[in-house]
């Protein structure tokens, strides 16, 4: 079943084009990571999917038009934007009562179960909790909702590495199953590489790369090229080259790995390395990627 489907999705703020004609299809049961620099249009795209902003083009989330049917869509969609969003004046117990009151799919017992090990007191107000506790609280709320789609927009921004790790661990172990779909944006790409089933690069409002992680591993190879092989390696048209401690690392797209192994030490690159190659570090020298 298709979870999200966009055709020619476009969002402008005045003269600024935030999302520039995006086609996207996310199937049920996937964990999609959206990677992109600040201002790439990631949040705007997610907000459109969540019915928070109006847009041009065609968009369906779980078969509904998000802008027209946000309240209905939100029965099946959960959203964590970043740690600052839970109302700071609210007591934990009020938060649980309220969500239980308005959300038909919320399971109070489940939320209590997820909260039990966190040490968050029910009488505390959100403003009294640490950043890490707020995200644990939000995650407990969300995991207690039997939703079909979970959207995470920089959910772990400003959190320490232990909390970040715990966040994704509980998400995978206690929440994710093949009937749910997760869409996540983050700058901590390395931490979620193993979590994702699909990855999507965005830059300047456009999708510059989309592939499943299986394809990603099959497609991209990074080789630490021996100096004497450098010319031969460059002849194979690497999409990116970098020097670390005097050694050359060349990144190849769709080049036979056996052939590359002869040139040096070959391995699967990280998402971050491919991102740099595809989106490019200095804005002037951006490599056009052929999809």
């Amino acid at each position, binding site marked *: *079943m*298709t979870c999200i489907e966009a055709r020619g999705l476009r969002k402008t703020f005045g003269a600024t084009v935030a999302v520039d004609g995006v086609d*996207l*299809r*996310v*199937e*049920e*049961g*996937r964990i*999609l990571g959206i990677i992109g620099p600040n201002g790439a249009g990631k949040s705007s795209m997610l907000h459109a999917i*969540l*019915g*928070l*902003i*109006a847009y041009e083009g065609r968009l369906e989330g779980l078969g509904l038009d998000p802008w027209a049917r*946000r*309240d*209905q*869509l*939100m*029965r099946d*969609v*959960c*959203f*964590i*934007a970043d740690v*600052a*969003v*839970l*109302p*700071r*004046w*609210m*007591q934990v117990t*009020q938060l649980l*009562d*309220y*969500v239980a*009151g*308005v*959300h*038909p*799919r919320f399971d109070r017992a489940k939320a209590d179960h997820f909260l039990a090990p966190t040490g968050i007191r029910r009488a505390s107000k959100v403003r009294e909790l640490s950043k890490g506790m707020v995200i644990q609280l939000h995650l407990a709320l969300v995991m207690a909702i039997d939703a079909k789609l979970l959207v995470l927009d920089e959910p772990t921004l400003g959190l320490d590495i232990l909390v970040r790790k715990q966040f994704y661990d509980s998400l995978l172990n206690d929440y994710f199953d093949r009937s749910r779909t997760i869409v996540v944006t983050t700058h901590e790409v390395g931490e979620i590489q193993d979590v994702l089933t*699909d*990855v*999507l690069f965005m830059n300047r409002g456009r999708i510059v790369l*989309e*592939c*499943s992680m299986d*394809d990603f591993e099959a497609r991209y190879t990074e080789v630490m090229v021996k100096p004497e092989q450098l010319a031969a390696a460059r002849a194979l048209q690497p999409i990116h080259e970098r020097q670390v401690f005097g050694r050359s690392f060349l990144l190849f797209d769709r080049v036979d790995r056996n052939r590359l192994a002869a040139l040096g030490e070959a391995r699967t690159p990280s998402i971050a390395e491919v991102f740099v190659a595809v989106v490019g570090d200095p804005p002037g020298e951006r490599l056009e990627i052929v999809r």
Partner: protein
Amino acid sequence: MIREADAVTDRPVDVQAAASESRPSTWAYLWSVRRELWENRSIYLAPLATAGILLVGFCVGAARLPVGRRATLLLDPALQRARIERPYDFALGMIMLTTMLVWLFYCLDALYGERRDRSILFWKSLPVSDLTAVLSKATIPLAILPAVTFAVTGVTQVLILLTSTLVLRMNGLPAATEHQLPLIQLWGAMLYGLMAMTLWNAPIYGWLLLVSAWARRATLLWALVPPLSLVALEKIAFQTNYIFSFLRWRGVGWTMEAFASKPRGTLMIDPMNPIAPAKYLSSPGLWIGLLVAAAFLAATVRLRRHRAPL
């Protein structure tokens, strides 16, 4: 990627989910009203604090009560009633004044605060429509605040009655009679007056809510400056005061429309002034005001849907 081309068949409708979806949206509405009370405790704490101060003041002044009452009892019966009622009217006036301030500040913050602290993103991630959210916020000025004013004033008046009766009895004086202090009639007038005021002022609440959904900062300024500049403009350009008179009529016109005659002095709800529901309900100002309030609320719903967090 993300294409499992074969898995496109739609799932059969989840029966259990369909059942739980039939839960009436009034639930979301009632919980949202409750949420407003959690967030804005001044709705009941401010009038309670005023009532507390009034009671303390009354107890301190109660020592002089027997002397005053002896003098009052020598007066004409009609004047007796006015004199004996005075602290009760004063309590109502002060508590109304307090709730009016709460009214103002609640409305101005209702849709502004949630954008400022970005919690609107959380509220919007729940299956609660913008209409439900705005209606729950409008319920505070339109129903909760008048009810709180009525209840707090009523209890305060009972406590004043008990205290004064105790003090008078200790000094060998009779308690106020039903004729000198018709408390039930007082409450009837208060309830009627509060309802009349709330419905009459509905466009003001609507305007304040609209500003709170629209303004990026300084909601109080945005609420007051446009009408005040119109007043000033008219005064300077035409040397007339029509807009000012109109605004004053929109603000306190109900005291004349809802009662048989003009109220005494500064009293907004005068229990001696007979109520005039027929006159009130046939006043075009009431119905036009309600239509304008509905238009403001509709615009507020639209704004809440469109406006991004600050």
